[in-house]
């Protein structure tokens, strides 16, 4: 039986894993490579690094960090943020990442999903969506709107419609990132995760809000999500309690959720 996936997500600046506190005051946690090695040793199922940008040019992807991480991580590894075109995708994949996560760029140029999927295979293309709860309307029937550029710009696009379009264009997975839940540590947005998972037939990743293992149990048991992104609960010094991958996996297995077991 196919198991649910735990995906560790980290933001990277200048080769360091950072954690933003209320969107500012980034705290450096540790070197990207060291964090990746540690979380791999802890038997995480998958890793996502966002915004791997180099200091000299904010918009340029730090391929050295991608390479260094890929040398030590033998589970799937996704890179997101800062990808501008097909050539960037090619460079990131060549550096050893398995998948590319695209977000705002895909809203500006949806055809990049189709192009990336054709060039590298749909399994490489993760469409990440920033979603915010709004009033239901004729234009936004799901009651969730797509935002871009770090949740600063609202597009007027319906989240479920965008997910379906992304699937039709060739996305291999969809990551639903809730702006409302992000950073709250109070759990994933069950409603939109469920709606998107029901609307598409590709795997859906729940993102934003995970603070404890119960949140993963809830999203896996109440929605069709195939994976959950965890971040702060693993390592943030701002959290009252951090959890190990083992603790989370053992909790999920004990509660009947299929998850790749931790091998002691």
């Amino acid at each position, binding site marked *: 039986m196919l198991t649910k996936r735990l995906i560790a997500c980290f933001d990277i600046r200048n080769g360091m894993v950072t954690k933003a506190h209320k969107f500012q005051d980034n705290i450096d946690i540790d070197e990207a490579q060291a964090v990746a090695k540690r979380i791999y040793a802890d038997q995480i199922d998958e890793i996502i690094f966002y915004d791997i940008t180099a200091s000299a040019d904010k918009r340029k992807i730090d391929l050295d960090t991608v390479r260094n991480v890929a040398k030590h991580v*033998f589970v799937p590894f996704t890179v997101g943020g800062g990808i501008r075109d097909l050539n960037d995708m090619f460079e990131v994949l060549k550096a050893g990442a398995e998948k590319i996560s695209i977000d705002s760029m895909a809203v500006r140029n949806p055809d990049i999903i189709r192009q990336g999927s054709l060039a*590298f295979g*749909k399994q490489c293309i993760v469409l990440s969506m920033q979603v915010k709860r709004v009033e239901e309307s004729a234009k936004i029937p799901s009651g969730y709107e797509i935002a871009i550029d770090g949740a600063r710009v609202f597009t007027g696009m319906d989240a479920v419609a965008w997910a379906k379009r992304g699937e039709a264009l060739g996305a291999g997975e969809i990551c639903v990132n809730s702006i409302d839940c992000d950073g709250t540590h109070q759990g994933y947005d069950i409603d939109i995760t469920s709606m998107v998972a029901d609307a598409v*037939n590709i795997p859906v990743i729940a993102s934003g809000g995970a603070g404890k293992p119960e949140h993963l149990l809830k999203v896996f048991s109440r929605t069709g999500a195939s994976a959950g992104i965890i971040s702060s609960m693993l390592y943030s010094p701002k959290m009252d309690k951090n959890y190990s991958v083992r603790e989370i996996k053992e909790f999920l297995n004990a509660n009947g959720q299929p998850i790749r077991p931790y091998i002691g």
Partner: protein
Amino acid sequence: MIGVIDYKAGNGPSVQNALDSLDIACVLTADADTLAKCSHIILPGVGSAGATMDSLGALDLIGVLEAHALRDKKPFLGICVGLQVLFAHSQEDDADCLGWLAGDVVRFDEASVRVPQIGWNLVEFAYGHPVTDGLRGGEYFYFVNSYHIRPENQNDILGMTDYSTPFCSMVAHDNIIASQFHIEKSGEIGLQLLKNFTRL
């Protein structure tokens, strides 16, 4: 020296990283002379069967691979699409493939499961084989596939997996070994299997 086939649709660098971490010498190449010096051949794969066959054809690699795997019987490992193209035909792109093994490749039933299958799934091994040495049974491996093989010869089946329907996830036929899952991305268990292959 392990030769890892370098072609456009492959994820050769990931396989190379995995071998490097095991301190096993390897070379990522599409060059026939370089491959002639290799003791083992790995055909990695991502993407579609049709694109893979086109790419192997364009690089004049089909005859080269056949010489190593079929004539010289060097240990050969196919991964993911590198497994699928060993069969005669794939529904994907309606592609004629290498046909080293009898059987075909078909799409998962989209009415019953999400396609592609992405994630960790259980592989049950039909018997003990040198490549599965050190495995305890009940291991999960990382899959990314929309299509699965249907071997005609039951003796070729080494591993089985369930994704709504049972499908063959690993084959072994003399010197030819191949897995649907990504050995190079299946954690320490995958590395163990890879190491075992290099010792054949």
